[in-house]
């Protein structure tokens, strides 16, 4: 039961953290919660489909279909997070200031929100399909102890959701002057971590060279099977044995999005001064 709880917790954690951070970051964007929920539902429905067709996806492209699928999902998520974060860096403060008043903000906010739907949908899709497969495996096996294992799965799921919610609640309590910097930074690291994961899948599929594997090994100090490592993995993309190529992807995503945020923020400031 305990093992089941941990596995489900690990799968749920990442999606939960992404939703928690995004929900906090877009707290002042009108209708954002509705779009997040829609993304969650779409992701759940999609993960059922992906789970059902795992064998089909897996056998595509000579057995590396799963890696390509994951890399594409992660790649789209990174692009969306980048776009969203750059958008927030110029509109976020303004939205919070005008405090859900003007109609223009709502139409403006809608385009940003549709991106939320896609990001959350993709995050849930990836992690949810693995959880669905795992739970299906338990339910389908003939040995006893189903109910206790499924109970463990439920406990793990609730614990994962609790982490995401605490993150949201903690961020929501943060003073306004740090809030946008903090959520912006978290989304930035989230996106970089996903870029590194995408590289990881492409290396596993032999579509990218690993460039030194592993580049370092900190598993003795901070293992990903422990809770701190697990959390850091989901939050900032921590990997105890990353390939060099993963770091390349991580840094490129980090630098590109950061530059985009700074650039947009500055051009907006210049626009206001005029």
């Amino acid at each position: 039961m305990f093992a089941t709880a941990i596995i489900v917790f690990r799968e749920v954690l990442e999606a939960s953290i992404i939703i928690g951070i995004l929900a906090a970051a877009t707290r002042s964007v009108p209708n954002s919660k509705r779009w997040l929920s829609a993304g969650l539902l779409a992701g759940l429905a999609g993960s059922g489909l992906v789970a059902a067709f795992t064998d089909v996806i897996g056998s595509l492209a000579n057995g590396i279909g799963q890696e390509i699928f994951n890399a594409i999902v992660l790649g789209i998520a990174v692009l969306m997070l980048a776009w969203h974060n750059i958008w927030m860096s110029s509109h976020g403060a303004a939205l919070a200031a005008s405090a859900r008043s003007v109609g223009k903000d709502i139409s403006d906010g809608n385009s940003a929100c549709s991106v939320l739907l896609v990001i959350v949908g993709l995050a849930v899709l990836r992690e949810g399909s693995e959880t669905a497969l795992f739970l299906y495996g338990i339910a389908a096996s003939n040995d006893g102890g189903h109910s206790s294992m499924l109970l463990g799965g439920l406990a793990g799921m609730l614990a994962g959701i609790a982490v995401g919610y605490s993150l949201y609640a903690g961020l929501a309590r943060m003073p306004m002057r740090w809030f946008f910097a903090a959520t912006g930074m978290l989304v930035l690291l989230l996106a970089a971590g996903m870029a590194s994961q995408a590289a990881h899948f492409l290396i596993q599929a032999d579509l990218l060279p690993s460039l030194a594997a592993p580049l370092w090994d900190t598993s003795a100090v901070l293992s990903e099977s422990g809770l701190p490592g697990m959390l850091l993995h989901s939050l900032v993309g921590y990997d105890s044995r990353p390939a060099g190529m993963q770091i390349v992807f991580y840094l490129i995503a980090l630098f590109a999005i950061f530059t985009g945020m700074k650039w947009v923020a500055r051009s907006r400031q210049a626009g206001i001064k005029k």
Partner: protein
Amino acid sequence: MKRLLLITLLLPLAAHATDAGYKLVIIDHRFQTAELTIPTGTKIKLTIENQDATPEEFESHTLNREKVIAGHSSATIYIGPLSPGRYPFTGEFHESTAQGVIVAQ
């Protein structure tokens, strides 16, 4: 020029040699080859065949690999190049029984 041509001709062969690869089979939530020896310093192709009806997730933190394998199907992953050592792996969905280790030497 001749040498270049020869090398070009041999390239597909070389690629094919690594493609032959290694295989693991999962039956009753166990890896039938619990210990797989592979050479160091070269990338290998590993095929994992899951003969069970239920899905399994091949996972190894030391190898930095994870992959879900649906029931009654096969999956391919690439591993290495590795330095000498023992690299344990598990079937995450049935961790109590599905255990194995890749030995690079």
